Structure formats: C-alpha cells, structure tokens
C-alpha cells in the first residue's frame, strides 16, 4: 500500500511544522510566540480559524504553561503539540523535565536559537543542547520537507506503547524556520492510516477520572530507581523504533531519512565529517565537490541526538582514519563542541583516530562552503597523520 503523492506547496520550515502537526490531528495545541518560531503558532491558529484543525487551542500566557498544558493533555489521553525556541525552552524547563518523567508523549518543535546570556535573536543549537539531559527524544532535521515528515514520525514514536516519551523536533532558526521550499503535503487520510498503528496497541495509562489513579506519585527508593531504569530503557528502545518508523514512512510515503543517522558517501570514504541541521545540506554539496577533486570524504548526518545513536555511529565511523564534527553550540567546561565530545566517548569502539571539533554557526553566523571546505581539509590532513588542532572556532580564525 502506498500513499498518494501529496500536493506540492512552497512553504517555510515553520509552516511545514504547522502542516505536520495539523495532519496528525492533535487534540490540544498550546503555545506561546517567540522569534523565530512564531509562524508555527500563527499558522496553527489560522488552520483552527479556517476549520481545518479541530483542536483545543490554548493561547497560554507563557511557555511554561504551554508545556504543562500539553503534558497534562497527553496524560489525560489526548494528543498534544507545542512549539518553542531558545528562551522559551529555557522558561519551560521544569515542565520539560516533568513531561519526560511523567512519560507524557508530547511532540514539540524547537526552533533552534541561541539561549540567554548574550542577547542574540539568531540561530544556534545551544537551546537543544541545554535540554539534552531532560530525558526527551531529540531529533534534528535539515529542511522543510523533513520537518513535516519527522513530526508525523514523531507522534508515532512518542505515543508508541513501548516508548511513551516526549519528542523534540529541532531545526535551525532563520536558516530553516524561514526557508521556503517546495514541500509535499501528505493527504490527511494517508497520515491517519500511518498513525493508525497506534490504535492497535494497548491503552497506555491515562488520567481516567473514574479511576482512583494519580499521575506523578512519590517514587521511593528503589522504586524511584526502577522508574528511572524504565525511562532509560524506553529511550534505548526508541533508537530501533525510530529506524523502523522511518522505514515504514519511506515505504508508505516514499520519503525516508535514514532513521537515527544518515550516511552520505561514507562507504568508501577515508575520513568523514559529522554534523546536523542546516549545515548538512551545504556539507553535501561540498563533499560532492571534494569527491570530484578526488578527496575520499564522507558525511554523517546526526539526526537523532537523544537517545545517542552510538551503535549506528560506531558502524559508520569504525575503520575511518579521522572524523571532524561541526557543532553549532558549545560544551561549557569542556571547551569544545557537544556532539564532538559525545562522539569521543565512543573512542574505545571506533578506535583511537583523530577526532576534530569545529565550532561554527553561533548567533546565525553562516556555515559557508569555505568553512566546510576548511573542515574537510583539516580532517584530511589529520587522516594523513599530520598534527592537528583539536578544537577550532572557525569564524574567529577565518577573520584573521
């Protein structure tokens, strides 16, 4: 069975997010506007006003309330969606932790933007990084079509009986949130069918008002540990489940994204670069150009960041001579990129090869083709056994 080819429409990443959410028929949408996410809220409100979206729209007075309302709605048995960015994500942090601990299957779009400290209305993945230990599933996507498709996959992952976890779909603010591309909009009935698998599963525990049941009870001693263990186990299961859902999606809609990670020209590569978000697309073109020049470079796209796709990364990188990681955020206290430092934890499995950290793209600085060429050149040299610099803040060095 294959889905109909959906209507092609030029839309921004934000609009694609709103379409993705609308197609999944959420019962409750609660959100608060923040640049560069605002368009998601506006578009959903428009859908509601036009009668296309039959959901309870809650125009909350802050992001914290958005997350609490969504978490409660899912635990009452509903499907809930919200969207935020940066400071908004920070402002809902207590509720973000609570949603994960409650195993509330909320799907949230987070439009990556720099976080408080230095004022910047600009792109950066620091917000997502600062919530990486919240117990959520975190996915990073690279274009408008992938946003729409991934939100549909995210609902199936979040609400899966074996998972029951909130999912955060991340995409770069400005570079993707405002990027208008041609996007295929799946037909509603096809999305319904894709999600109908969930209806065949057992009913997860919900706030049934006729039962003396309590959500968020005290976890005492080993019971507390047991619930943490179950949470971690569910995150672990989410990796394989995400691959399966991605494959199902591909079989049905004709578009898939590789699941946890995507490997691009890695098979015969001597060395690889690893990155996420909008930098992936540009990196593909640079890798193609370098390949044309005879440089055997490959690209790994980090799609799932939490849970960390360690098995997939080991498989992709083991045997390569070097890796360069481009991070659009920093790892405070380690003075390097966060994805880089997490990859380094896999050194025993991938072997003691040079791993290089590149920090780029903070505060909407463009991760340009020359920047990526430089990354490839540096990693190529390291792969040849030449000395290398462990951490490079590309734009700061390039300006000299």
């Amino acid at each position: 069975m294959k889905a109909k080819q959906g209507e092609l429409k030029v839309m921004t990443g934000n609009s694609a997010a709103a379409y993705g959410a609308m197609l999944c028929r959420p019962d409750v949408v609660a959100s608060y506007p923040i640049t560069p996410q605002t368009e998601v809220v506006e578009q959903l409100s428009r859908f509601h006003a036009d009668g296309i979206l039959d959901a309870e729209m809650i125009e909350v007075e802050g992001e914290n309330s958005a997350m609490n309302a969504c978490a409660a709605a899912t635990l009452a048995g509903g499907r809930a969606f919200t969207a935020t960015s940066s400071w908004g994500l920070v402002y809902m942090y207590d509720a973000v932790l609570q949603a994960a601990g409650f195993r509330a299957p909320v799907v949230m779009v987070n439009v990556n933007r720099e976080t408080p400290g230095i004022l910047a209305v600009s792109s950066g993945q620091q917000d997502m990084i600062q919530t990486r230990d919240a117990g959520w599933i975190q996915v990073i996507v690279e274009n408008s079509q992938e946003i729409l498709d991934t939100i549909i996959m995210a609902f199936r992952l979040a609400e899966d009986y074996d998972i029951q976890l909130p999912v955060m779909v991340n995409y770069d603010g400005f570079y993707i949130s405002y990027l208008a591309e041609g996007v295929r909009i799946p037909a509603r009935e096809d999305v319904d069918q894709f999600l109908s698998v969930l209806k065949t599963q057992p009913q997860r525990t919900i706030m049934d008002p006729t039962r003396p049941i309590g959500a968020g009870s005290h976890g005492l001693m080993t019971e507390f540990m047991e619930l943490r263990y179950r949470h971690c186990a569910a995150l672990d299961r989410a990796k394989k489940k995400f691959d399966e859902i991605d494959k199902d999606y591909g079989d049905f809609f004709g578009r898939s994204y590789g699941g946890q990670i995507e490997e691009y020209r890695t098979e015969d590569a001597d060395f690889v670069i690893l990155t996420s978000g909008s930098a992936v697309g540009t990196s593909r073109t640079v890798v193609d150009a370098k390949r044309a020049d005879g440089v055997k470079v490959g690209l790994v796209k980090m799609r799932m960041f939490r849970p960390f796709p360690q098995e997939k990364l080991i498989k992709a990188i083991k045997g390569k001579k070097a890796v360069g990681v481009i991070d659009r955020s920093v790892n405070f206290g380690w003075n390097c990129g966060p994805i880089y430092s997490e990859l380094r934890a896999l050194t025993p499995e991938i072997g003691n090869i040079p791993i290089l950290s590149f920090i780029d793209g903070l505060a909407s600085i463009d991760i340009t083709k020359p920047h990526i060429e430089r990354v490839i050149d540096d990693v190529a040299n390291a792969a040849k056994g030449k000395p290398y610099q462990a951490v490079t803040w590309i734009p700061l060095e390039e300006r000299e």
Partner: protein
Amino acid sequence: MAVKKFSTKYEAAWSDADQLLLCLDTGTWRTKRPVVDKEKCTYCGLCAIYCPPQCMITRADFFEPNLNFCKGCGICAKECLRGAITMRPEGDFTS
C-alpha cells in the same frame, strides 16, 4: 545484567488506590483522648463536622471518635457547645 522484574505496575510514576489504599495508624499519635458523655450529647453533630480526620462515628443518638485514627487534636471538645466531650490523657487508659 538487565533488570527483568519490576515492582511497579506502571511504566511511569502512577499511583493506584485500587491497588492499595495506604493508611497510617494515626491513632497512635494521640496524647489525649476525647471522651464523649453520651448523656450530655445533643446529637448536634458539630464535633463530626469540625473533626479534621472526619473520624467521628455517627451512632444512634451520640457521636464517638474512631480511636484508630483520632489524632487527639481536641477540636471536638473545644467546639462542643454542651461540653459533652473532654480530653483525657492517654495514660489514663489501658487500651
């Protein structure tokens, strides 16, 4: 080694009174015990209404505390308009 057995029934931190209704022996907290003078009791019910643990048992023509739960706060004695309830030290009683 993976954990195979869980003591919690639910995947998350749910509680379920159908599974177990927890209860404390708050009767043991008491240092004073309310004693009802059945003769003085007019059955007005104020003691039962104001009792925080709501443990006044409605008998045919008087009220008396459920000593399993009565914490001995003394509100019933204080609020009784007829002075029908007195607080007596627990030490005076053998059971």
